[in-house]
């Protein structure tokens, strides 16, 4: 007889501090046997893989090639430091996601390609070999993403990893801050095979909601993307562009902005102008950082409560950093614990 579900499954959050900024961890507590195993098995039938513990890293806005007062450290120092810190993590992540503005813009195509190759050289120092990228407007705004595609490949794509579906969504290469009807149709088709409860991580560059349109912190057709994502209950959106942390909640999704690895922007609600925060020579990496998302492994196998309850992302303060928590929705399950 199956043990009763306690209807709580967790993405457990732990937060650690990096020498230079924030490190976030999110963990699923999913067991391999019992009701949790059954649930994983059902998801596996949908997306081809069981949910299993793993972690990944989000890095953003490295702006390779930028030189100027907001960051006189030599351009890539924070990026290179981030690579060292990630490489030093005791448990290596399985993926690294870069959420755009890998390079600073230049109108010279040759220089643009050179900056992307410089980015690739630094990123290749990561011990993690599965790296996924999307462009920002500084990478792809001038040429519709042509050089980016030559160097790195497609600007929108998806993949499954240990039962989680990842979607790279380009909202920059049309020059305007938009995804575009064709790409939204692609997204809809890509997600169609999944149940409403499938764990989905979308990584993109600009916020998909109207965070601050007057600072160009929005996506013109983000509401249409949200309508597509709104059919799914367990959606996490990771983005960059705003060079600061931010958390936003929609009815069916949570949105997290990452810090930059070049300079930070102020809080727009503070009344500040949109210009980089002043450089602090005593603390050159102030307000810069990375995010590690750690999916799993902390529940006791076989006994882990696996009834998925709700998606809830909350902030925690720890060592001056922030983390987030995600709990799956109760509507994910039928009374017998099966996925709807």
């Amino acid at each position, binding site marked *: 007889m199956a043990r009763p579900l306690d209807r709580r499954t967790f993405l457990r959050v732990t937060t650690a501090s990096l020498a230079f900024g924030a490190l976030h961890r999110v963990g699923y507590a999913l067991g391999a046997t019992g009701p949790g195993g059954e649930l994983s098995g059902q998801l596996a039938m949908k997306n081809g893989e069981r949910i299993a513990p793993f972690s990944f890293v989000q890095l953003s806005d490295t702006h390779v090639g930028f030189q100027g007062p907001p960051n006189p450290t030599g351009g890539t120092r924070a990026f290179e430091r981030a690579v060292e810190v990630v490489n030093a993590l005791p448990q290596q992540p399985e993926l690294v996601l870069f959420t755009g503005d890998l390079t*600073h*813009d230049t*109108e010279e195509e040759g220089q643009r390609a050179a900056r992307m190759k410089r980015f690739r050289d630094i990123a290749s120092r990561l011990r993690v070999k599965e790296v996924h990228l999307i462009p920002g*407007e*500084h990478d792809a*705004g*001038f040429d519709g993403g042509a050089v980016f595609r030559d160097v790195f490949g497609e600007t929108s794509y998806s993949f499954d990893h240990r039962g989680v579906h990842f979607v790279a969504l380009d909202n*920059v290469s049309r*020059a*305007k*801050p938009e995804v575009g009807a064709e790409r939204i149709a692609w997204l809809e088709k890509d997600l169609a095979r999944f149940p409403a409860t499938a764990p989905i991580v979308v990584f993109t560059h600009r916020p998909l909601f109207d965070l601050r*349109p*007057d*600072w*160009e912190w929005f996506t*013109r057709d983000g509401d249409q993307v949200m309508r597509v994502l709104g059919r799914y209950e367990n959606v996490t959106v990771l983005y960059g562009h705003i060079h600061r942390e931010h958390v936003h909640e929609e009815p069916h999704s949570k949105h997290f902005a990452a810090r930059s690895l070049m300079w930070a922007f102020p809080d727009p609600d503070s009344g500040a102008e*949109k*210009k980089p925060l002043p450089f602090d020579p005593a603390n050159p990496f102030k307000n810069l950082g990375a995010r590690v998302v750690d999916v799993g492994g902390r529940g006791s196998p076989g006994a882990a409560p696996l009834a998925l309850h709700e998606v809830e992302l909350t902030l925690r303060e720890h060592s001056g950093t922030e983390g987030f928590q995600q709990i799956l929705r109760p509507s994910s399950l039928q009374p017998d614990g099966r996925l709807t």
Partner: protein
Amino acid sequence: MTPMFRWCARAVLATALLAGGPARAAAPRVIDISAKRFEFNPKEVRIHKGETVTLRVTSADATHGFFQKPLGIDLTIDKGKTEEVTLTPQQAGRYTVICDHFCGAGHGNMHLDIVVE
């Protein structure tokens, strides 16, 4: 009808015809705006609430956007071209128009304010 009344009626009709007809609305005020990396000129435009104005935007150097969602402004202006939009704002306030077509490193701060008073 007295001769005096007929004379007055003709005078009123003639005045109306010379003015373009009593039913014809006044042409909107035209405000010329130039766009070049990474600024609009002028940087601020003042409009009276309920006033109809035409914003005529010319790009000097590259493709620029001219976007302000609540006021229904959404233009794309190619280099050397002029585009225009006519609006009658009904609500007072300060509205920031941004260039929403990526035009280079300073693009993120290219904006103009419309003050409706």
